[in-house]
């Protein structure tokens, strides 16, 4: 909550006529929220980058964009792995059905079961850093949060507040009738994913920086990240993978390969209770979608962490 009213005020003070024109109050795109089937043309359209004003607000938004697409460089002190925000939020946080920022920002503050309290958008972003980025929460009033909040706010220009827009999150897909199959997922992975993410999920670098993110292991998201849920990962994969060819895997294969990915070890859940995987599973994972934290796979207990 901390950054939001201040930024809104800031935007109101400095917005140019171009931006103000973009804040269309009679925009119709959000009026009939529907799940995934909605055609793209009816989706909310975030403002164009070219229309960003050349002033203090525009500068802050650009900084937020830079952090979002190259978190490794622009918010390095809060990142503990090889991920960037845009690895999960495609098209720089714009793409419908890929957890776009324009659909998230207007839905906060919101109650989250994850920490059993009402979260501000700032707290939601801090959660991304703690879990998906396996790092630490940037301070609520600091440069990183302010810039990311400004970027999110700008992308949501004209979006209704507190009204769920079509294209939010990832469209969920049904679990395979016979359940997921990790062995089948391994085959799907080798055929479709390894070319970019490596044979062992290690990702690939160029000039010392990850280009393709690591999917498991010490440089990937931790056991507390939303993507550790097989159902969430399956939805993401179905929608977006292989990159540029989203929607080409079958629903079942998306589940199988998500299960394969998430049957590997990754950094520990930072909420670890009393050093106990069992207690942590009971409190945070037992009722958190479909996941393998604290579960034995091929005789090996998952959730031990990599650090």
């Amino acid at each position, binding site marked *: 909550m901390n950054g939001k009213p201040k930024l809104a005020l800031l935007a109101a003070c400095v917005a140019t006529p171009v931006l103000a024109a973009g804040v269309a109050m009679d925009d119709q795109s959000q009026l009939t929220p529907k799940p995934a089937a909605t055609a*793209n043309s009816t989706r909310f359209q975030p403002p164009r*980058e070219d229309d960003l004003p050349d002033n203090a607000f525009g500068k802050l938004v*650009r900084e937020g*964009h*830079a*952090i979002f*697409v*190259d978190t490794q*460089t*622009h918010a390095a002190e809060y990142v503990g792995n090889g991920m960037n925000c*845009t690895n999960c939020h*495609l*098209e*720089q946080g*714009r*793409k419908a059905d890929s957890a776009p920022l324009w659909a998230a920002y207007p839905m906060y503050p919101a109650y989250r079961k994850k920490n059993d309290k009402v979260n501000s958008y700032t707290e939601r972003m801090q959660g991304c850093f703690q879990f998906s980025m396996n790092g630490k929460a940037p301070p609520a009033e600091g440069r990183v949060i302010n810039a990311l909040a400004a970027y999110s706010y700008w992308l949501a220009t004209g979006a209704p507040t507190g009204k769920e827009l079509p294209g939010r999150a990832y469209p969920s897909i049904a679990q395979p009738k016979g359940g997921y199959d990790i062995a089948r997922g391994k085959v799907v992975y080798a*055929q*479709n994913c390894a*070319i*970019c993410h490596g044979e062992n999920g290690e990702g*690939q*670098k*160029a*000039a010392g*920086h990850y*280009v*393709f993110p690591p999917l498991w292991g010490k440089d990937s998201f931790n056991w507390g990240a939303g993507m550790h849920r097989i159902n969430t990962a399956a939805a993401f994969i179905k929608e977006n993978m*292989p*990159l*540029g*060819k*989203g929607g080409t895997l079958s629903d079942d294969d998306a589940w199988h390969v998500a299960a394969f990915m998430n049957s590997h070890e990754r950094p520990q859940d930072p909420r670890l209770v009393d050093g106990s995987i069992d207690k942590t599973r009971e409190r945070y994972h037992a009722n958190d979608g479909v996941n393998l934290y604290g579960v034995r796979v091929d005789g090996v207990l998952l959730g031990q962490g990599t650090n």
Partner: protein
Amino acid sequence: MLDSVVLRAMPLAVLVALAAGPAGAADGEKVFHEGGADPAALACVTCHGAQAQGLGAAGFPALAGTPAAYLAKQIADFRSGARMNPVMQPIATALSDAEVSAVAASLAAMPGPTVKEAGRADAAVGAGAKLALRGAWDRNVPECVACHGPGGVGVGASFPPLAGQSSEYLSAQLDAWRQGTRKNDPQALMGHIARALSDDEVRAVSEYFAGLGQWRVPQ
């Protein structure tokens, strides 16, 4: 053959010979400068430049610094026709497997261009930069750098360097995918992207990446 390699006693040649393995040892440097044992296997230097920096105006690509596995795959694809090229097809067929391994290793070891930093966080001015750094997601076209790396430096064995290739070569390849004369992209990752681009976009993005690489010698 092996004797002549050893006798040359050039560190690189020895290295290449070792890398190629004892059974099919060939001299990559020699293949580059003089061609293969079969006279139809013309020397690479003829068209690809003294330092394998390419001949831009003619559309012959730079090869220096390109991963060996990528180069070897292209040769195999010229042979099979998955990548059609009237100049390279007979040369690829005339090279022995050992010569391909050796020359690919030699080329990979040659210095590539200096690449300007250009990342996803940079401003994207112009149609080429927009495609490269922002993509065209309304057509399922990812940011070029999402796979080819910052500045188009290339990533691993499957995503070749774009920076420092001539705009002539890059646009010819995009056109080849659009026309179906090149269909050797692994998992068909590239073809649909090329086919989603307009003529203007092909030109713009080719010029963009050509401008990011700087060779010590002219192309």
